[in-house]
């Protein structure tokens, strides 16, 4: 097979085009470099590659029997070449893994279902612009100078897993009939905003069967990251149109036959590859046993997968993936200890369990790989700055009060006691790996100093105390509030200690562990005093900004301001001038395509966030870990742990392979 490239088409706009093409190559190179040596330079000629042929043996058999077209016809004209992380592999084997069952499909999607028009490079750091974005399903893409037109070139001869051709029609269906549909996006919680700029959604132009262009009225600076992150767009029209009311007037019959309430429910079920084994996909593996059908979710090789290794052999190497349903994480740990999993990185892998796994790894034949955290903080305490109760609002809104509380926390003791001595004291701030890292922002007010804390609390105006030594609020009553948490990790222990620290400085805080749904109800209704939650935005700074400015209803420290922002001033409450300035900067950022300008704007937003000191951070996480069998290869030594970057799918699982 000819050595395929990703930049054969003549570039329309030089720089962009160059970046896109170079990105793909650079990404692969970096990926190969990740392994830390061992990747032979002449890997194309290894005996493994020569012996194994261009396709998996069982597919070759099917071709022989005439049940499948030959591999050359199944691959696109220019298949994407994936540089293996370590070395070229061999066909065969099932990737054994596990997940918690319904509601935890994320684990499946993150491992095996990441194929967008564009994608992140495997060593993603959240840099602004498209430096870390490479073409994927699209063989190349162009963006015009002002960021209003995004053109994508599809791969000629690329096919769905059922052999049907993949064309611009599918993209058009995905955009026009799903994203722009009147009912579907809201009812399926698809984020339409990513496809709009200035509140107006893009129009899609199908230039030819292999070329699509998104046209925005106003520049959209964040479109590529949004595409690299969300992949809802790419669905098979030829299969799904039968479930769509606009394409099938008789959809009601299908709805009734499937026992669904509406065509939307039916469509939502059919479009989800974890729930529906029939939907054609472009992923390395297609679903054989969906969620709920058995005690496992099983995926099998997609015979039409459109990526190859450098030797021209069709990927994936592994025959399939098998996710065992294990609801209880201790049972999952037991499985890990016994060596049941080839590569696994979720649910069971707490720092607490690491010593046990370390003990078992020799017998069970696995080892650790590093999960590089992408969270900004293990736990942030978000005092409700827009509290319904005017007294608590006044107290919380006082920056000196928050600084005082922050100084009162002995973060090193938290690390030593509840975080297994892992991590560093930190506020909510971009991580060191991020281009937005700012030491001042990370470390401000993290010093444990009770006297300083008392000074700040006195300066805040709460120097009066009652008989029990509790500081009195503006209403003359002791300052007393709840910090709610859903017990996601070890919030209960952390808050228990913090409650003690704050009692030392005369503040009565009580942790409140509640069910997750109750927490959701409370925070959506702005009924919380304060919420403790792990803070995101450690690496995904630009695309996940609500930790640094109250921009969405995930900003629990100021729900009313966020409402004001998202509703365009119709609801909620107007925030102070500095926050409004942040909003303006962010709006500007959204419409700025240039990476350097984006970086400037975001840095300014972060500077204001540091100044505002919205919420109190505790500890920045140390590295996590996953496990990988010694016989399971091509998993990088370090994988970024981020749902935004879709790890570990980010590291190209199609090139994982087993070899004893």
């Amino acid at each position, binding site marked *: 097979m000819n050595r395929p490239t990703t930049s054969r088409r003549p570039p329309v706009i030089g720089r962009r085009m160059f970046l896109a093409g170079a990105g793909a190559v650079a990404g692969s190179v970096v990926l190969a470099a990740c392994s830390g040596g061992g990747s032979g330079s002449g890997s194309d000629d290894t005996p493994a590659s020569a012996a194994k042929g261009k396709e998996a043996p069982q597919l070759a058999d099917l071709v022989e029997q005439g049940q499948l077209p030959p591999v050359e016809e199944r691959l696109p004209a220019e298949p994407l070449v994936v540089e293996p992380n370590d070395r070229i592999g061999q066909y065969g084997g099932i990737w054994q893994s596990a997940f918690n069952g319904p509601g935890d499909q994320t684990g499946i999607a993150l491992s095996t279902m990441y194929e967008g028009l564009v994608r992140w490079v495997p060593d993603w750091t959240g840099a602004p612009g498209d430096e870390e974005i490479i073409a994927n399903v699209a063989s190349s893409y162009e963006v015009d100078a002002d960021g209003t037109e995004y053109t994508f070139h599809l791969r000629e001869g690329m096919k769905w897993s059922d052999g049907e051709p993949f064309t611009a029609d599918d993209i058009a269906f995905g955009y026009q009939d799903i994203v722009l549909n009147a009912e579907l996006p809201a009812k399926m919680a698809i984020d339409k905003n990513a496809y709009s700029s200035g509140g107006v959604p893009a129009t899609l132009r199908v230039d030819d069967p292999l070329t699509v262009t998104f046209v925005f009225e106003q520049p959209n600076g964040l479109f590529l990251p949004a595409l690299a992150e969300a992949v809802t767009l790419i669905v098979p029209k030829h299969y799904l149109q039968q479930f769509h009311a606009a394409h099938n007037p008789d959809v009601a019959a299908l709805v009734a036959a499937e*026992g669904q309430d509406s065509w939307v429910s039916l469509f939502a079920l059919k479009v989800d590859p974890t729930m529906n084994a029939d939907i054609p996909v472009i992923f390395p593996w297609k679903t054989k046993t969906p969620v709920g059908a058995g005690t496992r979710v099983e995926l099998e090789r997609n015979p039409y997968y459109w990526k190859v290794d450098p030797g021209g052999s069709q990927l994936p190497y592994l025959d399939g993936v098998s996710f*065992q349903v294990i609801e209880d994480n*201790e049972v999952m740990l037991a499985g890990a200890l*016994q060596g049941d999993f080839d590569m696994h990185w979720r649910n069971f892998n707490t720092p607490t369990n690491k010593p046990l796994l370390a003990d078992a790894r020799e017998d069970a034949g696995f080892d650790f790989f590093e999960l590089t955290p992408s969270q900004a903080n293990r736990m942030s305490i978000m005092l409700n700055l827009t509290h319904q109760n005017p007294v608590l609002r006044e107290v919380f809104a006082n920056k000196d009060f928050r600084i005082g509380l922050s100084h009162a926390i002995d973060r090193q003791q938290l690390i030593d006691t509840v975080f297994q001595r892992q991590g560093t004291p930190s506020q909510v701030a971009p991580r060191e790996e991020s281009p937005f890292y700012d030491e001042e922002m990370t470390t401000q007010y993290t010093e444990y100093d009770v006297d300083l804390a008392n000074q700040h609390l006195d300066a805040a105006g709460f120097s009066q105390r009652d008989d029990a030594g509790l500081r009195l609020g503006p209403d003359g009553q002791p300052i007393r509030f709840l910090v709610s948490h859903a017990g996601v990790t070890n919030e209960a222990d952390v808050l228990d200690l913090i409650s003690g620290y704050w009692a030392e400085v005369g503040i009565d805080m009580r942790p409140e562990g509640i069910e997750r*749904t109750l927490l959701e109800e409370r925070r959506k209704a702005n009924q919380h005093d304060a919420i403790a939650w792990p803070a995101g935005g450690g690496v995904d700074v630009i695309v996940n900004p609500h930790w640094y400015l109250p921009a969405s209803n995930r900003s629990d420290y100021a729900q009313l301001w966020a409402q004001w922002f998202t509703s365009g001033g119709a609801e909620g409450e107007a925030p102070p001038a500095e926050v409004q300035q942040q909003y303006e900067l962010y709006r500007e950022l959204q419409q700025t395509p240039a990476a350097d300008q984006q970086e400037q704007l975001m840095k300014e937003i972060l500077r204001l966030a540091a100044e505002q000191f919205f919420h109190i951070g505790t500890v920045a996480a140390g590295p996590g870990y996953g496990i990988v069998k010694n016989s399971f290869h091509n998993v990088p030594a370090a994988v970024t742990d981020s749902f935004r970057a879709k790890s570990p799918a980010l590291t190209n699982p199609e090139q994982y392979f087993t070899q004893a």
Partner: protein
Amino acid sequence: MLGFVARRLGLMVPTLFAISLVSFAIIQLPPGDYATTLVSQLEDNGQTVDTAQLEAIRERYGLDQPIVVQYWTWISNIVLHGDFGQSFQWNQPVAELLSSRLPLTIVLTLSTVLFTWIVAFPIGLYSAVRQYSWGDYVATTVGFLGLAIPNFLLALGLMYIALTVFDADVGGLFSAEYEEAPWSLARFADLLGHLWIPVIVLGTAGTAGLIRILRANLLDELHKPYVVAARSRGLSETRILFKYPLRVAVSPFLSTIGWVLPLLVSGEIVVSQVLSLPTTGPLLLRALRSQDMYLAGAIILLVSVLTVVGTLLSDILLARMDPRVRLGMR
């Protein structure tokens, strides 16, 4: 007797109606609904869901309807069409989900009951006949230990021992290779190899209760004048024991049927959860947690029906055993 049964059956209808209504309301009692759960799952994956979308999701699942309307749709579909609705979370008909889990739940429950009876009967008998002997003390202590150790702890402990000492496969009821395999002798053996942990854990708790009740009842009977009379007439001890007192004392075993029946459907929740068993218990717990209300509702309704039926059954059995109760029923 027939009249009694018919009357009771007739009375079941309003009872069940009330139970279904209240159960449905109780399922809704926890804050939020399935839409909240779904949204929090989406948000955990970085998506932002605004209030309008939340409302749209509610609408999609019919959660925006008044609760009375929701109840009516639910119950009328069950009564008129035998349709238990759709599980939100599993995206499957509730009936299908239950039918895949029920057989193993029933197997587990029945094995547990059998285990309980087999262990409790001889111990209870022995410690009543040989009251205050060392054997009695030892038997009761061992029996009660099962009751006294919290179930989940025993489950986890056994699992840990199985894991570290026997290097056995823990969690679930089948090894990986037999999970989806068709029934065969080997698969059955595999099931037995996994079943012992939950059966012991679940059985030990019930055993102590039965031992104590059997012993107590038997002691009550053994000291009654008719036994003294029988003994004075020279009947053998064994004969005395088995002819009457045991028959009376055994009634608690029969009344267990009353609670076994609902358990066939609900299974045991905590232990099943710890051991990750593919039974209905964890299904119910998860459904309640995620507010998957038709699934939770169906399980709870079935359990309620069987509780009522079970009560009736044990009443009838008791009546057959004990003529005094039969008379009182008129």
